[in-house]
């Protein structure tokens, strides 16, 4: 055969990706593997085998990733465009091109570091997952999952600014050098609320060097500290049988302890589903709150009261328990509430030390004091005090005072918060800050504070810097970099502090000029040597495991600072609650597309915030003419329309002398007479803004990136120092106009369909006791009477073999609604793992969001018979049941048969697979999917930036975003879908495939070990079957509640999933249509207290449906 010889063109001048450093020097001997070594192949991609990887680990970050570059079509190739393979110049050890490498690290957070395992591909971190070895592992929340996107965020700050003008790092270094040289400088540092032992150590050194130095900590939503300085309360939910939350969202935004223990006790069969369902093993959660939180959604009993009334309720409970709650707080007079409180108090008392009362960190000191007092009175075993390393830091008020007093010349703002934007309006922070000569802001975004500061220095992401931290309970965990800082100007907090500690203030970041590691590395190592011992061994172990379990917080006394319990503010006017947002937290995540697009777990709004109002209040305030009911009959559109037309009526909220116009939205289960405004939005606007807010010039678009621009309404100006959490005396009136809202879910009720099923441990008049209800889980709703679907066909091929013929693996999943709280962690984890694009507000309004997991959230309340409305405890407090829905991998999948081109078919292992490259986009499959689990690429969301206004609609003339930094986050093992193709969940098939192939390699190892000929080896199904539950899918891994179990059905009882499937709570969603889904749900179990007045309506979301 004649071979065509192709003259390739001259290699063009080497262009390296901006994002990577070019080649550095490294040890010279490449690591060649001998035959001997091949007998014991390197464990790749597994944490446990990484021990000796550590030494060379730093090196790979210096190297260019093995990549292929496509040289344009025009070049010498008429047959095919020439592409190149660019290998490492000097192969780094431990990097195997094409294989993921995993590192243990952690993410510093105000509530304690989150222990993580980070997936990297050729040095690119692409995904984070919880570190399952860590004693404090409690999954990851959406914020942690989404944090990896921030590393590559195009709006990430990457250059030094001087007075909001672009400057250079060299200029800044000069300033830093001057500060460092002057031991008498009046410097002050403001840190965040995360806890870092190394930082604490450096602070001591700084104190020694700078005699006049002041140290503060500030975060916008830091809560009320009633305990002694540095003391925090940690809850052990394993020991808590009865939990009362006084407005504490301890499961999600207000962490107080390892939550997995709590969730484990929501499963009557035990966390591993290995026991018989026993209601007594379950804990019981009481929640007193104003607006539905994730925790409130999990509550067995929930009392909705206005925020000012939480204290009254708390005091009443205290009184019932004989705890002194002072005399300033009025007693509860409402009969119903009183009954509720009495029964609750009795229950707490009965459980004694196994009861615990948790106060929301942002509730007033009085509530916290009462909670502490009750716990003390009950001698609750579940709470203990710990002493954090953060003691000795001043608070925000102190900072402002010092600033005003001129005691600070140079202010280092190292907090992740954005005080110019998020400080209380009456604190006068901006004016005070102006008094400092130099303000140096270290931040990841060019936010309001960055613009007001003298110097803004971009901070490194935690995935590119050395550091350490402590989890909530104080376990020492390390923060290690996965990659050198992407942008040269970026500085980490520790590097900055380290620079100040040197005589010349030389700032070294990433690595030194001669390739030595960053000073932060030395600092962390030095800290650890004191904690974990000297030498390489403990250090290597730390890096391998990510934590040092032996070092935790010392325990401390849980005593409140002295102070009498003061009366709550008088309930006047409407009460405005400034809530922590589930998507942007305090505003810091406003530029994170995944979080912005993830719908709020409760309200289901994405891309915006809105004022949430209970239906009756909305009517009373004149926002709606009638009470907006939880619609269950006609499936009619809401009064604010639906889909692209969905709006919220604008209202004007006046409080604390400020006013804010924003859209309102009805929220069910919220206390009457309250308005909830999530914080953190409205940071920057451009000309596309509906209200022209950029015209005023106070929130310019430069404060945010494309993600956060024009997003939501800023409620911080309404907030005063005294009313950080809620303010009374507000007035609300209807304003002119409407504002479009992107709601991911528009219908909140189940419409009489037993979808997200619920039972209760308490006997039901019609449906019997727990055991009976348990037995009838699979027979709820339509399934009670619909006959079984029987197929006329045998599922066979022409040889008579069954279709799902694989005898090694048959995949299955369970989702336990009893522990699912609907927090979106799985949704974002899936997005990170599977390269799911964001689509922007406009597309979300049209219903085109791409999340493979749709987090449905239903409100359920049984309509009382006519005339019996009064008997129901609270008609305005429907139960909240979340239900994540992704592709169910139906064995009899309706989507498959309708695809004309065989783009979606079943594989032998029971997966409903999707060949994107075969799909032509008829969308028929998605229409025929009863769960609507399929997502269509209506536009080229990956190629065209959906965030630029109208860009998607410009077609070929639109702006492209290929090659921008976010594309570096992509998982290389998952196809990036183009426009016009359908996509959906496939149980992370790339992970399954990887696990199977890894297992197959075992065969070879076996041969080589025995020394036998390979042909003599007989390989059984068991050899090829991956170890039980050894592969985790992204959503399961991320779930903080242990709600998702995945495994091999052929492992049967050995697999947690297999045992869960055997549970009586197991049911198939829409069983009656006969799709035989591989994903099944476990009904939610409510554990009400029968003596409570609201008990008859608990756990009744679906049982009476038929």
């Amino acid at each position, binding site marked *: 055969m004649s071979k065509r010889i192709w003259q390739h063109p001259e290699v063009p001048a080497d262009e390296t990706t901006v994002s990577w450093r070019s080649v550095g020097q490294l040890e010279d001997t490449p690591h*060649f593997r001998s035959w001997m070594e091949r007998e014991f192949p390197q464990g790749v991609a597994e944490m446990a085998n990484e021990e000796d990887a550590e030494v060379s680990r730093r090196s790979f970050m210096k190297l260019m990733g093995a990549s292929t570059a496509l040289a344009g079509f025009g070049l010498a190739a008429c047959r095919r465009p020439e592409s190149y393979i660019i290998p490492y110049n000097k192969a780094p050890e431990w990097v195997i091109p*094409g294989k993921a490498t995993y590192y243990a690290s952690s993410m510093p957070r105000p509530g304690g570091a989150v222990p993580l395992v980070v997936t990297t591909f050729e040095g690119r971190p692409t995904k984070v997952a919880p570190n399952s070895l860590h004693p404090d592992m409690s999954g990851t929340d959406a914020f942690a999952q989404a944090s990896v996107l921030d590393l590559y965020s195009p709006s990430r700050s990457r250059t030094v600014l001087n007075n909001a003008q672009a400057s250079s790092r060299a200029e800044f270094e000069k300033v830093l050098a001057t500060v460092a040289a002057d031991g008498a400088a009046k410097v002050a540092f403001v840190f965040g609320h995360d806890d870092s032992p190394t930082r604490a150590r450096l602070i001591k050194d700084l104190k020694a060097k700078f005699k006049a130095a002041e140290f503060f900590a500030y975060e916008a939503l830091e809560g009320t500290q009633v305990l002694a300085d540095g003391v925090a309360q940690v809850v052990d939910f394993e020991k808590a049988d009865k939990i009362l939350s006084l407005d504490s969202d301890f499961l999600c935004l207000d962490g107080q302890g390892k939550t997995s223990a709590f969730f484990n006790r929501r499963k009557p069969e035990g966390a591993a589903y290995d026991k018989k369902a026993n209601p007594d093993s379950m804990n019981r959660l009481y929640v007193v709150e104003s607006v539905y939180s994730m925790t409130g959604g999990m509550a067995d009993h929930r009392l909705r009261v206005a925020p000012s009334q939480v204290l009254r309720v708390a005091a009443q409970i205290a009184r019932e328990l004989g705890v002194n709650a002072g005399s300033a707080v009025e007693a509860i007079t409402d009969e119903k509430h009183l009954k509720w409180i009495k029964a609750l108090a009795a229950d707490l008392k009965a459980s004694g030390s196994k009861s615990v009362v948790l106060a929301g960190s942002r509730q007033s000191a009085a509530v916290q004091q009462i909670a502490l007092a009750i716990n003390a009175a009950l001698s609750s075993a579940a709470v203990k005090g710990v002493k954090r390393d953060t003691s000795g830091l001043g608070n925000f008020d102190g900072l402002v005072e010092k600033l005003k007093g001129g005691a600070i010349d140079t202010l280092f703002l190292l907090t992740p918060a954005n005080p110019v934007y998020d400080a209380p309006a009456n604190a006068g922070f901006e004016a005070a800050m102006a008094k400092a000569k130099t303000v140096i802001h270290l931040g990841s975004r060019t936010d309001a504070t960055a613009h007001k500061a003298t110097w803004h220095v971009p901070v490194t992401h935690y995935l590119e810097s050395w550091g350490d931290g402590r989890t909530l309970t104080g376990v020492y965990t390390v923060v290690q970099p996965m990659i050198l800082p992407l942008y040269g100007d970026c500085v980490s907090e520790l590097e900055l502090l380290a620079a100040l500690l040197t005589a010349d203030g030389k700032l070294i970041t990433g690595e030194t000029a001669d390739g030595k590691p960053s000073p932060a590395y030395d600092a962390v190592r030095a800290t650890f040597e004191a904690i974990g011992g000297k030498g390489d061994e403990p250090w290597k172990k730390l890096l391998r495991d990510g934590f040092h379990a032996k070092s935790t917080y010392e325990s401390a006394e849980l005593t409140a600072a002295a102070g009498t319990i003061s009366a709550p503010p008088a309930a006047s006017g409407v009460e405005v609650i400034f809530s922590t947002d589930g998507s942007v937290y305090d505003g810091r995540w406003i530029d994170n597309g995944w979080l912005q697009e993830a719908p709020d777990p409760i309200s289901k709004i994405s891309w915006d915030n809105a004022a949430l109002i209970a239906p009756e209040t909305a009517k009373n305030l004149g926002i709606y003419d009638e009470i907006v009911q939880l619609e269950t009959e006609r499936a009619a559109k809401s009064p604010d329309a639906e889909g692209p037309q969905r709006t919220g009526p604008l209202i004007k909220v006046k409080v604390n002398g400020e006013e804010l116009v924003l859209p309102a939205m009805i929220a069910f289960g919220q206390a009457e007479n309250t308005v909830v405004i999530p914080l953190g939005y409205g940071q920057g606007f451009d000309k596309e803004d509906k209200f022209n807010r950029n015209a005023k010039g106070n929130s310019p678009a430069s404060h945010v990136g494309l993600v956060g621009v024009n997003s939501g309404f800023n409620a911080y100006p309404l907030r005063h120092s005294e009313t950080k959490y809620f303010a009374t005396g507000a007035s609300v009136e209807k304003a002119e106009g409407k504002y479009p809202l992107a709601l991911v879910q528009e219908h909140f009720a189940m419409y009489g369909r037993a979808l997200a099923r619920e039972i209760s441990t308490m006997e039901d008049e019609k449906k019997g006791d727990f055991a009976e209800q348990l037995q009838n889980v699979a027979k709820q709703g339509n399934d009670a009477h619909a006959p079984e679907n029987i197929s006329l066909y045998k599922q066979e091929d022409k040889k008579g073999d069954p279709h799902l013929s694989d005898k090694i693996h048959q995949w299955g999943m369970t989702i336990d609604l009893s522990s699912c709280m609907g927090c979106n962690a799985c949704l974002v984890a899936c997005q990170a793992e599977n390269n799911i694009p964001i689509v922007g507000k406009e597309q979300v309004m049209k219903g085109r969001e791409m999340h493979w997991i749709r987090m449905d959230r239903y409100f359920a309340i049984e309509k009382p018979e006519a005339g019996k409305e009064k008997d129901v405890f609270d008609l305005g407090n429907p139960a909240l049941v979340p239900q994540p829905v992704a592709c169910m991998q139906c064995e009899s999948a309706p989507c498959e048969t309708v695809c004309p081109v065989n783009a979606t078919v*079943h594989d032998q292992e029971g997966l409903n*697979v999707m060949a994107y490259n075969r799909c032509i986009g008829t969308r028929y499959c998605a229409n025929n999917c009863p769960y609507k689990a399929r997502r269509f690429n209506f536009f080229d969301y990956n190629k065209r930036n959906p965030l630029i206004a109208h860009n998607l609609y410009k077609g070929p003339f639109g702006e492209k975003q290929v090659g921008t930094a976010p594309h570096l986050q992509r998982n290389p093992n998952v196809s990036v879908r183009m426009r016009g193709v359908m996509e959906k969940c496939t149980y992370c098939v790339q992970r399954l495939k990887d696990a199977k192939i890894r297992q197959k390699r075992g065969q070879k190892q076996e041969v080589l070990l025995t020394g036998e000929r390979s*042909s003599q080896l007989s390989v059984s199904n068991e050899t090829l079957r991956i170890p039980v539950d050894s592969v985790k899918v992204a959503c399961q891994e991320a779930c903080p509640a242990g709600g998702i179990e995945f495994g091999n059905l052929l492992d049967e009882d050995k697999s947690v999933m297999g045992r869960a499937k055997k549970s009586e709570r197991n049911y198939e969603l829409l069983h009656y249509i006969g799709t035989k889904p591989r994903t099944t749900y476990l009904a939610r179990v409510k554990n009400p207290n029968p003596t409570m007045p609201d008990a008859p309506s608990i756990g009744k979301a679906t049982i009476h449906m038929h």
Partner: protein
Amino acid sequence: MANFFPRWTNFLPLKIAICAGAVATGAVFAFTYYATPKTLAAGYQPSQPIPFSHKIHVDQLGLDCRYCHSFEDVSGTSNVPGSNTCWNCHQHVRKDSPKLQPLRDRMDPTLKSPDFGKPVKWVRVHKLPDYVYFNHSAHLNRGISCQSCHGDVDRMETVYQKNSLSMGWCLECHRAPENHLRPLEEVFNLKYDPQVYFNEHQAEMQNLGVKKPEDLGKVLKEHWNIHSKETCATCHH
């Protein structure tokens, strides 16, 4: 009144039909032959920046595949060696060969070449589309040799693409893997001949119940529990 159409037009439709039919048939055959991966992809033989000869290194010097492509049995992708792999020998061997100048430029700091430290841009020969996830280790560890896809690389002076690498071609083997299976010890042996192997390992073959060399693949398939799949997710995800 005369005929409007001349007489020759009577045969015109037939002639047109025959011509059109012939052209269409020709076009179909031409397309099948020239515009399918068999022709388009197979036989691609680009020249490389350094004319590395597999023939010399493998056939004459006896290097193992994995000396350079070190992770092919571990990773999904088979890596191309970095310059230091070459340099390991070639800083001592054939130090003056002009063909190796690009390598020296990149690796020898004393030359002060502007290319120093830059990687060699090898021209890619075997390329699958982005949406195809072929896993080298899955095949090599289960008795499919490099040779089955890449051909007799040991005899190639300049590497070319032997097979079409089309999906149809992949399926051929996935439907009948026994035609390509060989003992694991022989996976990297590019000179493997089933007949020779059969003759040399009589006892082993007897043990296995293999009567003819052709049966070896079938027996191995059964022995090793090999069920190569044809479903989409095997390669596309």
